[in-house]
């Protein structure tokens, strides 16, 4: 295109007009979000099945995740959705400085989420609250420790909660009972929950990282003046994605962290 107005630099050759281009971009992102929902839905379906089968184990494992991190992270993400939406407003008004500022705040909030998440993973790892070999040995040693204690003494145990006590709690619950009988919590199925916990939050984390990348890209684009008011749909499209990732967290958080009442079994 020859003319040099903003409209023509934004409009791509194969579209007739800006409105068509914008609505195509928006629709494309919505379709993409549909695929994202279905991508996560596979895990949610599996989660539903197993939680239905093994409610006790799921509740037990959930109680031993670190709730305060999840709560804090939820706050961060919700706030970041707000600043992202404000960024669209700046873009529509052609306020590039405001746009960059708001994008950077969004980025910082998202990065904070990832930071806390990383801290949480490392604590979990440290406490060996990870499915597989490590989990087994940790649990077995807790069982061994508890073996000489009489059943009566263990009976009125105080449930400690918190992930650093998981192996003791689990050993106490199962103490003196035959595996699989009423009231036991199968360590295998606790691991099953942990598989969900790690896979779902990790895949969600990957989405956050991709979103952070897109936000950084927008910042660069805005910085070099490539996001004029007429081209605000770039920001809008990224924000749609960011909101979806935020929303998925709003489902993950209660399903993973809030399904067992804390402080009791």
């Amino acid at each position: 295109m020859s003319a040099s107005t903003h409209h023509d630099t934004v409009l791509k050759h194969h579209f007739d007009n800006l409105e068509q281009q914008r609505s195509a971009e928006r629709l494309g992102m919505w379709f993409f979000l549909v695929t994202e929902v279905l991508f996560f839905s596979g895990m949610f379906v599996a989660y539903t099945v197993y939680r239905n089968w093994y409610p006790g184990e799921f509740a037990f494992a959930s109680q031993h995740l670190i709730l305060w991190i999840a709560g804090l992270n939820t706050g961060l993400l919700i706030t970041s959705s707000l600043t992202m939406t404000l960024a669209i407003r700046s873009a529509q008004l052609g306020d590039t400085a405001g746009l960059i500022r708001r994008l950077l705040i969004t980025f910082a909030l998202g990065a904070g989420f990832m930071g806390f998440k990383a801290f949480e993973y490392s604590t979990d790892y440290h406490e060996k609250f990870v499915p597989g070999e490590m989990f087994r040995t940790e649990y077995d040693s807790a069982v061994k420790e508890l073996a000489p204690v009489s059943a009566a003494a263990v009976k009125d145990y105080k449930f400690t909660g918190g992930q650093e006590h998981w192996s003791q709690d689990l050993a106490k619950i199962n103490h003196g009972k035959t595996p699989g009988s009423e009231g036991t919590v199968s360590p295998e199925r606790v691991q099953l929950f942990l598989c969900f916990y790690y896979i779902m939050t990790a895949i969600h984390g990957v989405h956050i990282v991709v979103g952070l990348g897109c936000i950084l890209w927008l910042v660069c684009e805005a910085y070099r003046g490539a996001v004029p008011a007429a081209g605000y749909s770039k920001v809008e499209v990224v924000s749609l994605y960011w909101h979806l990732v935020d929303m998925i967290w709003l489902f993950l958080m209660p399903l993973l962290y809030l399904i067992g009442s804390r402080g009791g079994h």
Partner: protein
Amino acid sequence: MSIVIGDTPRTAPPPPEPAVPGRNYINETSGFWSWALTVDHKRIGILYLVSITAFFLVGGIAAGLVRANLLTPNGAILTEDQYNKAFTAHGVVMLFLFLIPSIPAVFGNFLVPLMIGAKDLAFPKLNLASWYVFMIGAAFMVWGLLAGGIDTGWTLYPPYSSRYSHSSVAPGVFGVFITGFSSIMTGLNIMVTIHKMRAPGMTWGRLPLFIWAMYATSFIQLLGTPVVAITLVLLLVERLAGVGIFDPSIGGDPVLYQHLFWFYSHPAVYIMIVPGMGVISEVLTCFSRKNIFGYKAVAWSSVGIAVVGFLVWAHHMFVAGISYYSALLFSFLTMLVAVPSAIKVFNWVATLYRGSITFQAPMMFTLAFLVLFTVGGVTGLFLATMGTDIHLHDTYFVVAHFHFVMVGGMVLAYLAGIHFWWPKMTGRMYSDFWSKTSATVIFVGFFFTFVPQFVLGYHGMPRRYPNYPEEFQVYNVLSTAGASILGVGYLMPAVYLTLSLFYGPKASANPWSATGLEWQVPSPPTVFNFEYLPITVCGPYEYAIGVDQMGRGLPEPPGMSDDNPASRLGLSGPAGAQAKETEVVG
């Protein structure tokens, strides 16, 4: 179908310089990078065409090994381990690297913008990215298949695939996962394009049926592929980490994998066939010079297949331990999904009725499709019936069923499409004699290959076994002989189509006197497809009106001008078809 009117005002002006005569999308620019970095939907279509042809060859070689091994009851050439790897390679390559991208990625890319009067797909860069993603995924799969091979079968059921198999499952699964994204990208692009980029007058009711088919296919790609993607991730985690959610030792359920897998993979069989059905509607109407019988029924049946196809997955699991009642329900729903397919077949046959049929190569492939697909669909009903499926499940009957639909159906539709649009894509005509011969050889070879498999399966020969009792040998030998004929039939187009690029006569803009918009631009098209804005005024198959009477406003450069005798003589309808027959030069 449409009139092209020059200079209709539009927000964006037409390209400033008129196209240089003789310039088209192939010769406009040249050099390696002009292809490797192209964002032109037509060139990307060609990139896909070349890649999947190569993969078809690879998959074909693996099939050849399998069939050759079955010549004798105890395995003629391969060890049992190699046999497992050969049939897995065949399945994985043919499904993920050939059939799924075949029509959507080649013709979908090339034709969707041309058919709806757009300059390109909505997201050209995404389109190019889809090809790279596809090739990267393919590279992982080929790595898996060469380094150690994969012996799980294409369905990759755990716990065998996650725990026990000693073959290279991980790179293979990862490759399938990646190619899935390319499928999603293509589907998304096509879907947005159909929604947003139709030329004026191209209403939903005037869309060519190929477009409706591509729409339905994209719908399945968008909704199904992500589910198999996550399923494969879960499988991969389980294999690599040694613990995962399908692992029975921690309370996981491998049958859940089957549910998730088939939730995609049953709809995926419609990703493989629905685009073929779209091609058939185009070719069939053209070569019987008739409007399609029941346009709406054919269009909506594509959508019907796309929707109902999502509700039937558990028919692959009748004997996997699902409950009696869900088996009953899925049996019933599976019968339902055959209805839209049958609607199409009936409408095609009704279109043929009293048409002026000519038997050029695309039409011969189409008629072969009709016969073979019908057999495939009907035998699907045997399998959908729970009682009979318990007998037939995992036997050669199933193998024959799905080859009738996928090879007899989709591959023939693909070949019909290639022969129909080859002049448009390359600007060249191919050999009339050899193309007809190839259609005949393929049809005969196909029958010999797969009819004996129905018999074998009915008598209980299980699929995926390297050896079998003596009395099955005669059928296996027949089948292998048929496969050799089939192989020759497939090699023929590779030869004469390639030769046509160099020696074939130049094709006119509309060698078949077809009504589609894509035939109103030069062959091959120019880079931006339409120099002027096309405006559609009637439905897509108005063969009764005659192409010439619909007006052809596109000015063509001298030498490229339309030399279709039908329109020069002012003939229309059936006469057009007969007159043009002389054009396909042998």
